């Protein structure tokens, strides 16, 4: 009984070590293949459209409603103190430092991460990835690198977009419902913002993009067991990305707070 439990714990630990090793290797190989010619411009642009442009509507809705909710929830307390104008600062800081990057990454992980895993997983189980290799083409160069570059560029861009839309959401509540003047709201939005706030948000977005792409591609490239296996890999890809994104967010926030005192 005890022996079996120990064996099962040992096997799980080995699985985790194997997962970390596999994803790290994939990340390193991806970095190594990026500069290798030819640069697949057409594929990178097509992935940027799929990942970035096609995510605009869902990021718009998520950020807008988050901005509105953030303003409404803080209005509940701020109105008691007669400090409605500070809602603008609260919304802008929360969006740029935290909610913009995290919510965008989670939305993109659900939408794009799942689709990358499902696509690569289907290619794996239908032997298309083997076929690529027999045609003297490296699957990492051909499949992973364009997605990696597209995500690393588009996730920060989507984050800036989400920051902006979230602030508009707050503006709608602050100016339209709580009676703060438009000029005051805009001044209170920009005044507390410093470059570091935007920089930390974008750095988070960059790290989330790396996590999301590596996990999604790793799960896809290692899918096995037909349609059921692809389904399992897709679920695992989204769940793992969600957990790792939130863990990385906590880690980066703590790092900046303790090391650089910027939160």
């Amino acid at each position, binding site marked *: 009984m005890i022996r079996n439990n120990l064996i099962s714990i040992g096997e799980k630990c080995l699985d985790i070590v194997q997962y970390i090793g596999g994803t790290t290797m994939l990340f390193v190989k991806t970095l190594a293949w990026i500069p290798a010619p030819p640069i697949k411009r057409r594929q990178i642009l097509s992935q940027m459209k799929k990942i970035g442009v096609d995510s605009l509507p869902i990021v718009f809705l998520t950020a807008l409603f988050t901005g509105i909710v953030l303003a409404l929830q803080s209005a509940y307390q701020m109105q008691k103190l007669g400090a409605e104008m500070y809602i603008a600062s609260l919304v802008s800081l929360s969006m740029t430092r935290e909610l913009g990057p995290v919510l965008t990454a989670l939305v993109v992980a659900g939408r794009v991460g799942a689709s990358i895993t499902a696509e690569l997983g*289907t*290619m794996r189980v*239908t*032997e*298309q990835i*083997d*076929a*690529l*290799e*027999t*045609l*003297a*083409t490296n699957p990492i160069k051909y499949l992973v690198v364009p997605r990696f570059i597209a995500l690393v560029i588009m996730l920060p861009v989507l984050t800036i977009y989400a920051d902006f839309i979230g602030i508009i959401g707050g503006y709608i509540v602050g100016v339209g419902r709580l009676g703060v003047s438009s000029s005051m709201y805009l001044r209170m939005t920009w005044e507390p913002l410093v470059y570091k706030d935007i920089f930390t948000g974008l750095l988070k977005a960059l790290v989330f993009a790396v996590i999301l792409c590596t996990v999604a591609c790793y799960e896809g490239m290692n899918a096995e067991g037909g349609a059921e296996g692809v389904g399992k890999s897709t679920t695992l890809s989204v769940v793992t990305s969600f957990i790792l994104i939130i863990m990385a967010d906590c880690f980066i926030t703590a790092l900046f707070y303790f090391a650089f005192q910027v939160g």
Partner: protein
Amino acid sequence: MNIEIINLCKSFGDHKVLDNLSLDLKSGETTVIIGRSGCGKSVLLKHIVGLMKPDSGQVIIDGVDITKLSGKELNKLRMRVSMLFQGAALFDSLTIGENVGFALYEHSSIGKRQIAKRVKECLEMVGLRDVEELKPAALSGGMKKRVGLARAICINPAIILYDEPTTGVDPIMGDAVNNLIRNLHDKLKVTSIAVTHDMVSAYKIANRIAMLYDGKIIFTGTPGQVKNTKDPIVKQFITGASEGPITNGEHINH
């Protein structure tokens, strides 16, 4: 190109799939490897094209042990070895034309017009016309197999590997695929290796038949020798009898 397989071993966990397997494949011949489903035929093919690395043993193609190759050297070899996959493995996101000319678009300095011409030629060789702009999803199983074949011959390979070429197509289309393989062999003089459990196909395309059983090649011979063999294992397989030495101890009738 001669292929020499020496003492090839491959295990997945505790399951030994290839067990000291040795086989010589002569240049310009079509060798068919027969065996039951799951006996390791596809695994053997994947070793010949370098998709899998053996636990031990060698695969020597024209004097070079390909199990030791990687990167550019392996890719150079792969431009001379083509493979037709069981499900054709066409790239869903590309058109038929882009699929067939894939290796040329990716790895040659030939102009797009010339590649398009070559693609057309290859598609005509497998009996297809005006399908270049279609996506693989628009084709039937038999047509996909033929496109896979066109993709395999597009680079003028010296070796073509066929993984279950007639599986998943109706008998008439299966016969058409067999004829295609024979014609390609006669026209292009390539070394061909096909793995199958379809004996009709094996007799039609093979110069030589080898049987894979229990991780080893237990028999090699011409189609005539296979038909007249006294070997009980080969005999059970080619006659398709459910009872015999292969299924001894298995309860496949229940």
